[in-house]
């Protein structure tokens, strides 16, 4: 970046709305970049995105093509990560499986925090019986172990990756609602809310324009940190046969397939396990870095 742009971005006295906004973003980027581990997480996730986008060009073989003569082959030049019980190339299946993983992560990340944000902020801001009702509903959801509740939902809706994602989203919003409510309670009586109220700001405006922006940053951090758990839950559902259905190359289901051979043909289960491990780790690292940037309670002041 040339020095003029840099000075322009870091200016203490921005001249336009756009410059101020870009400057704030750049400041955040600088904070984020200083965290080497978070950068590593970001790089891994960008790589995952790239792999998912270019799966057909990257995968050496068809992920569904069976070769029973070449089943359970150890990693070799022909099959870099070996083959599974049906002779399918594990590397190709992992590459295509990244699409499934991203679909799960993306959908859950879109649904759960939005539900949680809405319910939590409304409960915290409205108070009274609205708060009581919404938070008791949240408590009911929290009272069940997450995976068991997801299992029940999938069992009722029927197995399949779409239903598994829906079940995960429905079961993972309550912690976000709790978080959003706690944040709302701490800011609803702040002077800046009182000041906006004195200007005649309505409740909806206060909620969306003033309370949401302060809740969203901590929710984003929490979501990034929870992503690893969501991937693992999805893998768990796949492992139990309630998530992705064969022959879809979902990582959890691939571990499940390899379980039978885990002692003699370790790579069948270990390779997708490694993939899950790396992506979960990347999300955790990213979440950590985002906390440095976004969390208003951080050491930024």
């Amino acid at each position, binding site marked *: 970046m040339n020095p003029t742009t840099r000075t322009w971005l870091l200016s203490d006295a921005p*001249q336009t709305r756009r410059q101020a906004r870009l400057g704030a973003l750049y400041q955040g980027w600088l904070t984020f970049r200083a965290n080497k581990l978070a950068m590593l997480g970001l790089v891994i996730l960008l790589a995952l995105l790239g792999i998912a986008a270019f799966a057909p060009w990257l995968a050496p073989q068809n992920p569904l093509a069976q070769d029973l003569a070449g089943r359970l082959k150890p990693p070799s030049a022909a099959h870099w990560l070996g083959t599974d019980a049906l002779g399918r190339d594990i590397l190709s299946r992992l590459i295509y499986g990244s699409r499934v993983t991203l679909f799960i992560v993306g959908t859950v990340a879109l649904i759960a925090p939005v539900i949680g944000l809405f319910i939590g902020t409304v409960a915290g801001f409205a108070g009274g019986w609205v708060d009581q009702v919404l938070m008791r509903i949240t408590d009911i959801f929290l009272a069940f172990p997450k995976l068991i509740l997801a299992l029940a939902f999938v069992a009722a809706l029927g197995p399949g990756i779409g239903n598994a994602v829906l079940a995960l989203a429905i079961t993972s919003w309550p912690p976000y609602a709790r978080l959003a409510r706690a944040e709302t309670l701490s800011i609803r009586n702040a002077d*800046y809310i009182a000041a*906006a109220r*004195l200007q005649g700001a309505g409740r909806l405006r206060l909620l969306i324009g003033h309370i949401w922006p302060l809740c969203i940053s901590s929710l984003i951090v929490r979501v990034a940190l929870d992503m690893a758990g969501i991937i693992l839950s999805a893998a768990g559902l796949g492992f139990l046969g309630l998530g992705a259905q064969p022959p879809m190359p979902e990582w959890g289901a691939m571990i499940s397939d390899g379980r039978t051979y885990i002692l003699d043909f370790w790579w069948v289960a270990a390779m997708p396990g490694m993939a899950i491990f790396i992506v979960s780790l990347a999300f955790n690292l990213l979440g950590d870095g985002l906390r440095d940037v976004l969390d208003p309670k951080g050491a*930024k002041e």
Partner: protein
Amino acid sequence: MLTVRDLDVWFGHPPDRVDAVSAASFSVASGESFGLVGESGSGKSTILRAITGLIGTWSGTITVDGQPVTGQHRSKAFHKTVQMVFQDPYASLHPRHSVDRVLSETLHLQGMDQIDRRITALLDSVGLGRGFRFRYPHQLSGGQRQRVAIARALAAEPRLLLLDEPTSALDVSVQAEILNLLSDLRRERGLTYVMVSHDLAVVAHMCDRLAVMRAGRVIEEMPASALRAGTAVSDYARALIAASASYQPA
């Protein structure tokens, strides 16, 4: 401009009910600068919050510009007439809203036109240049923040400004600047001030008349000249003035 009669303000329900203000009465004429003084917890700020409807648990009569107000609801006309400057400028600006956003939203809410031109005029009138327009609160000092808060309060061109210890969170040097700014604005715009403070020197400098409060009650009303001369009637007010005079800021 403002009349308060037999105002009681309380928090909580019996048996835990706390009476923050009891039977407070005073009135402020148009163009006057009125001070409310007293020690911490004497109910000064609570009165302002009851007037603005930020607290709903009060009884008595509050009349603003001839119009009585009730409960927590305030009309659009009230918001255009009465505005408030809060004590802590670090808490009264939204941390994620730029100065531009704060002022344009306020102007929009108050139904003003020519928002762009008005923002520039407001920033000029509180002694902040245009360079501050797109800054965020964390890029401002305490005094600058308070100037933004004053600009926000002035946006609707109100006639009554409630000042809740507007300088107590600021450095001594900055305090004088803000007080001078407030004096100038009052003179230029013919504003009415109700200023809450525990700093008698500030009130003596800024106000024409004042009421001394203690434990939720108005003990005494007096002109500022009486405060400066130290000729208060009640024992408590005399003690307060004496205590304040013996205190020399470091």
